[in-house]
């Protein structure tokens, strides 16, 4: 029996890994939803009304009630639709998953982003910082199939930027951040993650993402 979705709407931006996290979670749970692509240079009334504090995407609107902040949305989705749980039941393991999701958002992703868009002056230091963070992740994934164990969990979805976006962005910028020589376990995880049938279907198409960020990289030069 399909989960009773009620009315589910996602305000998002297709190239955004944060927005895409919500897409992946909804797809993993088999939740039907309506999607609205926001133009961030001309934000919709609905976005401004449903996320007045940050005015950002993603925003999930469930039966008219809005939720903002991607990790908050993911936990809401997990608590509302029970199939394919994203978090384990055990409180200690849940705390551990939350720790790694938060680490990704507060340290790892910003370091990677900075390295990718760094200019000549700051590049060496930014890349060093990014590599240090990837080492921490490599150490955490170890020989697990997914960060969540045998099945995809909150941390895997939160790490989609590492598993998918970084490969594309580092190619555009001619950088070597996530390589199989330096991070064999993380690369193996990224291959498992991106080849998962639901994830594969939910991620933005590679060539479109490449074109989008390539245009941005060219414009900033």
């Amino acid at each position, binding site marked *: 029996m399909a989960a009773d979705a009620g009315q589910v709407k996602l305000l998002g931006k297709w190239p955004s890994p944060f927005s895409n996290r919500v897409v992946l979670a909804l797809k993993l749970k088999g939740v039907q939803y309506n999607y609205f692509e926001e133009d961030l240079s001309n934000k919709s009334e609905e976005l401004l009304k449903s996320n007045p*504090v940050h005015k950002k995407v993603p925003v999930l609107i469930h039966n008219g009630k809005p*939720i903002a902040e991607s990790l*908050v949305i993911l*936990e*809401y989705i997990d*608590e509302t639709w029970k199939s394919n749980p994203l978090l384990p039941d055990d409180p200690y393991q849940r*705390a551990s998953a939350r*720790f790694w999701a938060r680490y990704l958002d507060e340290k790892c992703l910003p370091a990677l982003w900075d390295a990718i868009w760094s200019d000549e002056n700051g590049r060496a230091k930014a890349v060093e910082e990014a590599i240090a963070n990837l080492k*921490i992740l490599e150490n955490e994934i170890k020989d697990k199939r997914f960060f969540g164990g045998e099945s995809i969990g909150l941390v895997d979805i939160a790490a989609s930027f590492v598993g998918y976006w970084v490969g594309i962005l580092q190619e555009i910028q001619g950088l070597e951040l996530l390589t199989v020589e330096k991070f064999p376990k993380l690369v193996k995880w990224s291959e498992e993650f991106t080849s998962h049938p639901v994830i594969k279907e939910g991620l933005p198409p590679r060539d479109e993402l490449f074109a989008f960020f390539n245009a941005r990289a060219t414009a900033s030069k």
Partner: protein
Amino acid sequence: MADEVVLLDSWASPFGMRLRIALAEKGVKYEYKEEDLSNKSPLLLQLNPVHKKIPVLIHNGKPVCESLIAVQYIDEVWNQKSPLLPSDPYQKAQARFWADYVDNKFGDCLRKVFTSKGEEQEAAKKEFIDCLKLLEEQLGDKPYFGGDNLSFVDVALVPLYSLFKAFETFGNLNIGGDHQCPKLIAWAKRCLQRESVFKSMPDQHKFYDLICENRRKRGLDQ
């Protein structure tokens, strides 16, 4: 099997204070270990290798790091009394959203006010007052952010709010938001009347001295 609970903390830390409040609300007995942050113990470095920060909650030998994550853990494990998060997923999401706001936006603004001077500080103060006004609006006429009882957002905010008030009271820093946030002021008084909160508070004079020392070290004040 008896629970073994240890808290690695620092007396002045508002983040540690969150855990002290949560543990007290739940009536959990624990051993408090004071960390010297200028000389971090091998235990801390071993239990929180990623951030090397306090607080760390150690439950039966297993570490839980990051204060808001540890508060949620405390709420989930000792779930027999004083729930800090509501059971309804939507209400829970709202609580998490606002706790995240307190940590990120409000926390960042407060940091900027403390670590700047002159024009930069004036701009930071303005931004900070906007944060206060938003929180005032969010609190509304409820006794606590969570409703009738102390909850997740209250626990997240009250230590940071107290930190800001200590600085404002003892220093010559006048943020000027008071007249605009009477409900927050009443809320803070209400929180402070709870044993779990006032027993977790650092000594206000010692606290102010520490803030001043930090500012002197950064060359912000003579």
